[in-house]
């Protein structure tokens, strides 16, 4: 093989691998990406039932119901809308009524959601960023003041 042929082989192989990678990335971008929506978004954007989304908002006070076998239902709300969430499993440590939550799963109807994972705040200082942003936008953000840890 001449020097030129060798160089061409190298460039060719590199081009192939990069093309395959690019194809995979573009395909995956269409297929595997999950959008974040608040309950209000679902109505305003009319998200189709059957879509996989991340739902974020506040857990409505008094809405958490525990059934048999770790079946749990609760309602996620923002300023404008409420959606009922079904979930089977253990809730995270910092899951609380009245506080922020992000649930990932399938939207079953415009008002019902089946979650397969539920994320809550990681610690007392922190609310899921998407939830905090949404609440800020809707003017319901109460600031960090009541979330800072108490000093003894």
């Amino acid at each position, binding site marked *: 093989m001449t020097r030129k042929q060798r*160089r061409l082989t190298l460039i060719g192989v590199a081009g192939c691998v990069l093309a395959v990678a690019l194809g995979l990335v573009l395909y995956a971008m269409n297929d595997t990406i999950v*959008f974040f929506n608040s309950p209000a978004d679902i109505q305003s954007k009319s998200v189709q039932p059957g879509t996989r989304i*991340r739902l974020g908002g506040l857990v409505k006070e008094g809405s958490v119901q525990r059934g048999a076998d770790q079946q749990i239902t609760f309602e996620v709300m923002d300023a404008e809308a409420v959606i009922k969430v079904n979930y089977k499993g*253990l809730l995270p440590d910092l899951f609380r009524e009245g506080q922020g939550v992000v649930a990932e799963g399938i939207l079953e109807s415009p008002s019902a959601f089946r979650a397969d994972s539920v994320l809550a705040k990681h*610690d007392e200082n922190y609310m*899921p960023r*998407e939830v905090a942003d949404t609440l800020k936008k809707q003017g319901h953000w109460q600031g960090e003041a009541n979330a800072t840890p108490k000093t*003894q």
Partner: protein
Amino acid sequence: MLVEAGHFALALALGLSLIQFLVPLWGARANDPVLMAVAPASALAVFACIAFAFLALTFAYLSSDFSVLNVVQNSHSAKPLIYKISGVWGNHEGSMLLWVLILALFGAIVAISRNSIPMRLQANTLAVQAAVTIAFLLFILTTSNPFTRVVPAALEGQDLNPLLQDPGLAIHPPLLYIGYVGFSISFAFACAALIDGRIDAVWARIVRPWTLGAWAFLTLGIAMGSYWAYYELGWGGWWFWDPVENASLMPWLAGTALVHSTVVMEKRDALKVWTILLAILTFSLSLLGTFLVRSGVLTSVHSFAVDPERGTFILGILILFIGGSLALFAWRAPMLKQGGLFAPVSREGALVVNNLFLATACATVFIGTLYPLALEVLTGEKISVGAPFFNFTFLPLIVPLLLLLPLGQTLAWKRGNFLGTAQRLYTVFGLSLLATIVMFAATYGGPVAAPLGVGLGLYLVLGSINEIVTRSWSKGTPLAVAWRKARGLPRSAWGTAIAHAGVGLTVIGIAATAWGVEAIGSLKIGERLKGGDYEVRLERVIPRVEANYREEAAVLTVFGSGRELGTLETTKRLYVTRGMPTTEAGILTVGLGQVYASIGDAQPDGSIGVRLYHKPLVLLIWIGSLVMAAGGALSLTDRRLRIGAPVPAKAMPPAAIPAE
């Protein structure tokens, strides 16, 4: 007083770094040995100053000095000693201080290995290293000062984030940072070579141990972090494709490529420009990782800081160093003497393929990690790019690489014979295929990916063993001779084989997770929960009060195929100061697998929620990583790479001749 002294030492280190940056750079330009000799001296002084500052902060933590803001925010007088120490780097300010401490430590090691590194290269390298130190010291002193006092002093601290109160997380950041920051040395050497406009196999030989060492530590750091997430977060997952994890995976992938490309450069004097670029990119990705984690642009456990001022500053550092080094590369790289080209089917060709796949895989991780951020900035749309994206893009790029690995490892340098090499691997390939078919039949109806993945891992392990065997034994050789031959193989050959076997073990562990089972149920005392072949019985729930938390511990007896295997304890803790609950998983190790249980909230009827997993062979994921790092460490002890034993360029005989 000691705190102020620490603060002052940090400022002094900044001044000394300026000297370490400017004087040697000028000295190297003017070819003045006196000026160049300033580099090692000032590097040692900078290290001494930063080490003093770090000790001063550690002392403030140990003595619970609540007049220091950082201590108030992250410590508590009742905290166990180990977490008082690890609390020093369990927060934004302290971890940045650890970052520059390690940076300065590496500078100091370069400084004391003066006899083995050409003077000009050393001066330029330390100058570049100093530039990085300056940027980060400025960052600490202006936006993240750990020595800020608080008036009046607090009576008690606010405690460390409970998730971080764990032995795993006590050692995870130092390991990870040694890895991250270790690549700064390869970066500094690369920039120094560009400034000097000269690069040869000696350069590769000097840089390789640094890269290999950093790589081994990064491997350990990532494995440690993964094991921590596995047992501490209570979800039983070991890798979440979380942006923070990706931030450490990207430099690891690029670093792995760099470790391999320096071999080509050292042995065959080829791939020079690419190796330089890779060294720059690897450290750039380390900086990017620091930016992602430290600026608070991500939402994650690791983002302790949400502060736009800091974010902007680190972004500035990022742009300055990545932009600056790439500009230097664009300007100087064309002047470097190109190395030779080589035959596509050869060891060096295989290593190019390795680099190609690793770099591409790294790029897909990069896109998946940064695309959501970019999209949010540009359109405001919030998306999550999770495991499905990475499984879909990353795996198809890594699997072919792993399939080619044993082949590449067996190929000869210069001009390999593909068929001949494949023949040497027939047995290995056959055995792995057979094992895959047997596993597939035995678990028929189960996940298909598991036997394929375990078979692939087995193929890698056997391929590595085969490499050592074929190099020391052929038909008719007495075993004693073969043993002597095997022991006589260079340490780097053993290191390579061991590291690659480690990859195989990790692959087996990962693939076997598909065989895992999960069960969720509500248990009252005495009730049982079955998950696959294993079963647990809730024995009792014990309330306990410890120094800085109280907990309810559930004791579960584990049964496997009718026999009692032992007990495990999983707890729900409440850290009093922060009012923060955490779950501690209970783990019983059975062979290489684990029975893993965590508890949820108590139900109204008095039962508690229990999540049970059986994870076969899961330990292999981390054992494999340890083996990889051990392979890297063994390679480091190779006589050829030992710091202090390089051969000058003139004495390098025909390596520079391209393999035509």
